[in-house]
């Protein structure tokens, strides 16, 4: 998939607060497809999105988006590149002082000089796409969690981006909201020809919509391929994650000293 890769990470090393989060990660994300990046909590999945978006810089290695070497971009070029990216944050990150309509209109007002009636129409179309045209007058505080994410999704597609990154879109959602989001991600990808990157630890939902998936653990990619290839992956660690087994290569117990010592047994006086 090298020639059609929209995002390409090569030997990326990244540490924060003395902890190595990525230890030479290499990953290609194909153009026009949905790629799921999965892994246990705390493995740096959100950090990966921030590296792609240029909010963080790797210690070493290369992060390319659409042929641009993101860490080397100057501020202006980076901001121009970001206009082609949409990101759905876990919390939605709507501007709380603006209504639903104004939230979706925000990127249009900042980056375009469109007349007001055209902005009005585009915003309504984007809200229609997520099923919330009727909620345009509400304030973010009046929305449920699922609705917040749908508005945030409408906002992130307002400028018709080429890439959209979803940060844990299913976390904490009820089954209906989850179903809505799964449908939206799939429909938006096919109708707009987007490249979608989906970061999640919800295995069934992610595998049901993605074309490719990769699993990250311990700072490395431990498995990658189509959902079918992953399900047949020989690695025990991949299987433990996909099947949600409580014990395996990732142990149930946090590393501790010998139980006998902790309980005061074993000859200590």
């Amino acid at each position, binding site marked *: 998939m090298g020639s059609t890769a929209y995002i390409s990470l090569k030997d990326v090393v990244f540490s924060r607060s003395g902890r190595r989060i990525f230890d030479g990660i290499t990953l290609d994300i194909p153009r026009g497809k949905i790629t799921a990046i999965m892994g246990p909590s705390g493995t740096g999945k959100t950090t990966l999105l921030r590296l792609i*978006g240029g909010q963080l810089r790797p210690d070493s290695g290369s992060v390319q988006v659409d042929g641009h070497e993101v860490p080397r971009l100057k501020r202006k070029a980076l901001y121009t590149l970001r206009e082609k990216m949409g990101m759905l944050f876990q919390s939605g990150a709507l501007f709380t002082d603006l209504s639903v309509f104004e939230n979706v209109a925000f990127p249009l007002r900042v980056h375009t000089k469109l007349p007001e009636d055209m902005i009005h129409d585009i915003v309504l179309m984007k809200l229609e796409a997520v099923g919330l045209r009727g909620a345009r007058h509400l304030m973010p505080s009046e929305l449920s969690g699922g609705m917040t994410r749908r508005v945030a999704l409408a906002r992130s597609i307002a400028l018709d981006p080429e890439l959209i990154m979803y940060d844990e879109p299913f976390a904490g959602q009820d089954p209906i909201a989850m179903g809505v989001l799964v449908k939206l991600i799939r429909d938006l990808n096919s109708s707009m020809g987007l490249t979608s990157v989906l970061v999640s630890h919800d295995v069934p939902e992610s595998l049901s919509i993605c074309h490719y998936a990769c699993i990250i653990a311990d700072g490395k990619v431990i498995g990658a391929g189509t959902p079918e290839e992953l399900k047949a992956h020989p690695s025990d660690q991949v299987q433990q994650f996909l099947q949600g087994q409580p014990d395996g290569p990732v142990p149930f117990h946090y590393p501790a000293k010998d139980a006998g010592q902790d309980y005061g047994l074993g000859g200590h006086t």
Partner: protein
Amino acid sequence: MLDRIASLGRLGLDIVASLGRSGRFLAGVLSGVPRPVTGFPLLVRQIYAVGVLSLAIVVVSGLFIGMVLGLQGYTILSDYGSESAIGQMIALTLVRELGPVVTALLFAGRAGSALTAEIGLMKATEQLSSMEMMGVDPLRRVVAPRLWAGFIAMPVLAVIFSVVGIWGGMLVGVEWLGVFEGSFWGNMQSSVDFLDDVMNGVIKSVVFGFVCAWIAVFQGYDCVPTSAGISSATTKTVVYSSLAVLGLDFVLTAVMFGDF
């Protein structure tokens, strides 16, 4: 013992690092070219939030402080039979010192803390990150209008404080205690110099406004994005701003009025 020395060193390094971050932050905020069409409405909204909404506390405080000055001044000056000098005493105290300083302290408590909490909460709820990812620099979009608003609103508030304070002093001195109105205003007019007193007071309030707004927006932007982090940043804003205002006031007073 070594641990204590080490922790002292660490504290020093933290302070220097924080100062460095705040300097870079300020450079980032001020380096942007202002865009009048988009920037002006944002600035007006922030001037309303930090300036107009602070008017009530500034006016009420100014009134009471002026009234107290009238009372105290009368009590002290009447011992020497010079209660007619009460007008100049009130005016000089207010325009030189109390106007800028008390307004800055009130400003830090009322508007500074609100700025810190607002920006900190925007950081905690990823609003600043989402803005960055939309290709909008939060330093220019969110922080710059708030910094400039503080800078503009503070001197105006300080002038209003002084004017209301003088009026409060007049209410007590002239209307209540019976000081002759002509000498109240006349003494004030002859002793208060526009450049030496009024303008120096305004310069003080400009400096205080800038420092208070800078501390407030930096603490919000730099805070740890948790509830405890925001709470600590808000506290730091009020404490640091108050100390900075009082310290700078001494320095500025020494420079402006210290003709020794």
